[in-house]
């Protein structure tokens, strides 16, 4: 049996976090989701992920700081930024990510990008 690709979702809004987890599981991925960016670092250190999806505006450690940490730990994991804000495009730290998506009620764009990056 083919091994499922494992995705980490980091999203501080609990309901959105659950929504992403359920929707991506339906697509056949193994999904670990957390609302806490510090917890995300622990998870990345302990487990292997094929892809990370992260929000930017989060308490304690924002998504851009999280991405810098991810790059210091495992540089080759592709990252998708999934945010409500266009304005972070001006921040060149976003370039560490493979994609910059604007949150939408439809997850089609997010799913298509995941498929493009990890199949």
């Amino acid at each position, binding site marked *: 049996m083919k091994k499922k690709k494992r995705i980490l979702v980091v999203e501080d809004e609990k309901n959105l976090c659950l929504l992403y987890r359920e929707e991506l599981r339906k697509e056949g991925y193994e999904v670990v989701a957390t609302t806490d960016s510090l917890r995300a670092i622990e998870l990345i250190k302990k487990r292997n992920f094929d892809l990370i999806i992260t929000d930017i*505006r989060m308490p304690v450690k*924002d998504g*851009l*700081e999280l*991405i*810098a*940490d991810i*790059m*210091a730990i495992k*540089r080759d994991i592709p990252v998708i930024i999934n945010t*409500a*804000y*266009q*304005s972070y*495009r*001006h*921040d*060149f*730290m*976003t*370039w*560490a990510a493979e994609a*910059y998506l*604007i*949150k*939408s009620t439809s997850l089609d764009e997010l799913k298509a990008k995941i498929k493009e990056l990890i199949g």
Partner: protein
Amino acid sequence: MSELRKDIIGGRWVIIAAERSRRPDDFRPKTETRKVETGKFCPFCPGNENKTPPEVFAIRKRGTLPDQPGWLVRVVPNKFPALVRGDAPALNRSENNLFFWMEGIGVHEVIIESPDHQREMADLSLAHLEKILETYRQRITEIQVEKQYRYIHLFKNKGPEAGASLAHPHSQLIATPIVPKRIQEELRSSKELKEKFGRCIFCHLIEEELKKGERVVYQNEHFCVVTPFAPRFPFELRLYPLRHSAWFSGIKENEIKSLARTIKFLLGRLKKVLSDPPYNFYIHQGPNPTSTRDCPDGLAEYYHWHFEIIPVLSRVAGFEWGTGFYINPISPEASAGFLRKEKQDL
């Protein structure tokens, strides 16, 4: 795609990159500023070339491959740009002629000035500065071929207070399908003043400033740096070529060498006198010369390209935003005095 919209009263175009925000207060900036320097990862550093789009230009060590380490100056398109390349957009207008808009096309490139993350432009060698300036010329010249980009703006933000999001030294180039309002105003006024004085107003002012000397900060055989007579900000500077030309792309090889010396001098002085301030600099030049509608006969004679350099030492507030008046707490003569150096050892 983003959209360009025109304010018909102010005559100003803005880029609208709409986002699906949830509440109006989401637009308020966070009170704490993210540290520019995380010390952990930088997408501009050598070894991270796979985190940028493929390079469009680079000056490299011999034998090194594109998008691999070995570059000295590297230019890449913006990975997540607000404006994207496209054909000349149509100008749309509402039936009542109140609202004007067009597709947000453009070019946005990042010039990574050095592989060294820590070394600021002020601390680079003259030979390296020449490479950066040659890169500016090359990119502007190449983009000028595409006449839908009517103006090419080259600028640098240094420090978070000046808008830089990464500490790794870089400049940026944005080409737009409209000629910005400030450039239009300078063009209009320099045309009128040419008619009044019978010569390029910039050449006229440079000659007077050099004669008077009290606002001159630096001069060599091809360039001078002065504090303008009516500066908006403390220590605001203008860098003028002594040879009249409307476009930066016309700069000659020996002038690039002189310009590198000029920039090294003035950034070095800003760093020393103002304790390494954040700053912005940008080039003002004529509109894309391949666009005949933006470059009428005579423009080459009445416009004169130059750099504007603005150390970020004060904040623009209600009075300045509302009136366009600026209150400057230091005279340009005093600023020039601080920045000047008796022995110009470059």
